[in-house]
């Protein structure tokens, strides 16, 4: 009963929150926090439960709705609930003086609820229903801000509808073939399906997941949507919602089809997995370099979200213990640090009055140190500096790629990482380092309620980086569920038999070396703090406004790569959209407005009917 309770609390909580908002804002805020807290608690309670199912009949087409919890769904559910809670907490301050807050909280809770629904549904129909609810409610929140967000939302919803319709096709086709929608039942039926049918199922369904996960040719909705949504929601979007694609792929590839079938799916060199790998690799590289030339803090993060998806894909496509673990772990890690980074971007936006262009900022480290640390740790996680969580998962993925003899994929992943280094540094440098502009001389650190989620996430990034064994244990349970060999783990990493990674050694090495260097540093002669313009201008006059070099930070490089970064896919879709519009406009001319023609249509139709009936 606990699963339906979770869903009821999630959905009901959203509605109650909305209604409470009509009474008082405070009540609404408290309720929102309570609901999301309750979800976290409830979901933590079902950890370690064995696979449990709850049946609810939908008296329609004789379908059963099944709710199911298993390690996979628990893993995603806790991410969803956790990030949901943090983003609600964050919103309390961030959204304080915005309008239509009832709507905002309602939609945010509603999205969380529907995402929970997708992961704990045990049959494809309820999966799809929750998926669709998720799509449109997300749309409602993406467009919340108006302005540019409208177009972003429209782009998102159209692509998402395309994806979900593809999925619908698959689901219905499975249903009409096997007469059931239960995932486990379909999984057993699919073992005997023909190759062609399996391919159809796999390709069509993955269209939807590729879209939602924003893999390369279908990524175009994401940067806009993430950049234009309000920041707490961007973090939800980027951390959780986008990763539903990974969940879906995992579900279809491993839970429904299973390894045996996947291995059969190839034509010569090209197999389904290799196509996905290619997509992943292209996504990584393309996204990393596109992020490099962005000037908008949230857009950088959005593109990084696109890129990091590629790593996850590369991880989970290879059904080896380390690859799968790496992919899944990367989902978790990415969710943590990208949420953190969006919180950072939001905090800056909040304090500077909506500035997202990083070139206008600088030197904020002095005013917002906590935010800076959060950003630094977040970016380190994003890059994968050792001792942050991102490192462990990337390490696993690289290892899989290299040892699995896929050096070119590994190369793409590495290049992507280097791109990440570049834009990650740019993010920090342009926002936090250097000269503090005059107008931001008096801004304050982010409010406490906004700091709290950031601090929590920062700690988590480091914690999982040093003690990767904690999440890895959960992930290995997922693997056991789909009969994959689980990866052996220790608390600090991977034991020697599975390829030795020991984060605690690295931690001590770094700490000790830092200590030694620091001692050296302390012993040396003292230094005097000076004004930043002093040393540069040697005392002579420099304009106060801005000499922090930020604009076009990687100018030579951008000049070189920009020609290759034209978003061909985006243009292509735009042309399709325009073309469709044009065709529609032409088609509508059928209704010419002159009644004689209309009458002629009628007679034409009659004649046509008679004609074909006479002669066929």
């Amino acid at each position, binding site marked *: 009963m606990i699963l339906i309770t979770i869903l009821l609390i999630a959905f009901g909580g959203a509605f109650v929150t909305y209604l409470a908002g009509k009474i008082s804002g405070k009540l609404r805020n408290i309720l929102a926090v309570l609901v999301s807290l309750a979800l976290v608690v409830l979901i933590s309670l079902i950890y370690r439960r064995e696979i449990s199912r709850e049946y609810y009949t939908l008296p329609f087409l004789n379908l059963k709705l099944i709710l199911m919890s298993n390690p996979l769904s628990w893993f995603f559910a806790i991410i969803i609930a956790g990030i949901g809670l943090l983003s609600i907490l964050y919103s309390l301050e961030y959204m304080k003086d915005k309008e239509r807050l009832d709507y905002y909280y309602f939609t945010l809770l509603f999205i969380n609820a529907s995402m929970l629904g997708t992961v704990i549904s045990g049959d494809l129909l309820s999966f799809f229903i929750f998926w669709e609810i998720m799509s449109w409610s997300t749309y409602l929140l993406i467009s919340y801000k108006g302005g540019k967000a409208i177009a972003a939302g429209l782009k998102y919803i159209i692509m998402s509808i395309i994806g979900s319709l593809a999925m619908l096709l698959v689901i219905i086709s499975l249903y009409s073939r096997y007469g059931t929608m239960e995932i486990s039942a379909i999984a057993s039926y699919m073992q005997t399906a023909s190759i062609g049918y399996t391919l159809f199922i796999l390709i069509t369904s993955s269209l939807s997941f590729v879209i939602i996960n924003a893999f390369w040719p279908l990524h175009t909705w994401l940067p806009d949507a993430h950049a234009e949504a309000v920041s707490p929601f961007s973090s939800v979007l980027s951390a959780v919602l986008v990763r539903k694609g990974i969940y879906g792929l995992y579900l279809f590839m491993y839970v429904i089809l299973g390894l045996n079938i996947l291995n059969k799916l190839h034509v010569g060199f090209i197999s389904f997995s290799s196509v996905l790998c290619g997509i992943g690799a292209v996504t990584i590289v393309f996204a990393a370099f596109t992020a490099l030339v962005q000037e908008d803090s949230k857009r950088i993060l959005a593109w990084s979200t696109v890129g990091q998806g590629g790593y996850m894909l590369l991880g989970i496509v290879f059904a080896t213990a380390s690859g799968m673990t790496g992919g899944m772990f990367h989902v978790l890690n990415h969710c943590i640090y990208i949420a953190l980074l969006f919180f950072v971007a939001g905090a800056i936006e909040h304090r500077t009055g909506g500035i997202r262009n990083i070139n206008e900022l600088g030197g904020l480290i002095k005013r917002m140190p906590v935010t800076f640390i959060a950003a630094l740790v977040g970016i380190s996680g994003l890059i994968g500096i050792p001792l942050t969580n991102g490192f462990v998962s990337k390490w696993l993925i690289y290892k899989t790629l290299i040892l699995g003899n896929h050096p070119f994929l590994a190369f793409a992943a590495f290049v992507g990482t280097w791109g990440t280094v570049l834009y990650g540094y740019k993010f920090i440098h342009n926002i936090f380092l250097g000269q503090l502009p005059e107008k931001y001389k008096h801004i304050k650190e982010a409010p406490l309620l906004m700091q709290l989620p950031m601090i929590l996430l920062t700690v988590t990034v480091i914690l999982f980086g040093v003690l990767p064994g904690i999440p890895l244990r959960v992930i290995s349970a997922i693997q056991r569920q789909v009969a994959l060999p689980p990866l052996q783990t220790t608390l600090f990493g991977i034991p020697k038999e599975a390829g030795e990674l020991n984060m605690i050694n690295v931690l001590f090495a770094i700490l000790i070396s830092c200590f030694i260097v620091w001692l050296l540093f302390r012993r040396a002669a003292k230094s005097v703090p000076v004004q930043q313009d002093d040393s540069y201008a040697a005392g002579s006059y420099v304009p106060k406004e801005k000499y922090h070099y930020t604009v076009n930070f990687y100018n030579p490089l951008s000049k070189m790569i920009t020609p290759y970064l034209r978003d061909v896919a985006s243009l292509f879709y735009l042309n399709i959209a325009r073309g469709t519009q044009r065709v529609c406009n032409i088609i509508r001319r059928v209704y010419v407005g002159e009644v*004689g023609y209309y009458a*002629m249509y009628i*007679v*034409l139709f*009659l*004649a046509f009917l*008679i*004609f074909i*009936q*006479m002669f066929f």
Partner: protein
Amino acid sequence: MRKIISLILLGIVCVGIIFALYSIPFGKDKIKVGKHYIYNGIKETGAVNIVTSVVLNYRGFDTLGEVTILFIAALGLGVVLYGKKKKRKEGLEPASLVLYTGCRFLFPLILLFGAYIFIHGHLTPGGGFQGGAIIASGFLLSYLGCPRKWISKERFNITESLGGLVFVIMGLIGLTIGGYFLSNFLPKGIANTLFSAGIIPILYCAVGFKVGAELAGIIYNMIE
């Protein structure tokens, strides 16, 4: 161009019709349900005029619909012509005396004739619609001939409504008494006499009044 296309299309339809009509030879006796009416009509309805018995008894529901359609037309005309500027024909020359007198003379006769037609609908050719149309022509005459003697529209409306109501109420009474809507609950009487055929004359009277009023109303609306 348009004409040619039209002709081609109509040609195709025409071919189809020709094929279709092969199975329906002209003038052959192919009556099926109708035969039943012809043989049992008098017995079952008491009306000598089989058409009337079909119109008001066997297919009385159609007639109700038909009355409704006319009603709709009247209402529709009212809706469409609503708010049109009423131009009283000031400069209208009064009709000549002959015409005026003729009209006044003929008007009651026409009404009477119409009434005759619909009252005897179950006996002779004719009926409510025909009678109503004749009555309406009387009003048309009076409108044309005696422009000053117009009858108020309200009365038409009331007559219309009452006629319709009588039809429906008769049907409902039939439903309660006979068990069927529009069933013939009155005694059928002796065939070929005026007071025969149960409710058919009553219905025809209602129809006659209604149609007369409606057509007159339509004419009124159009003229105005």
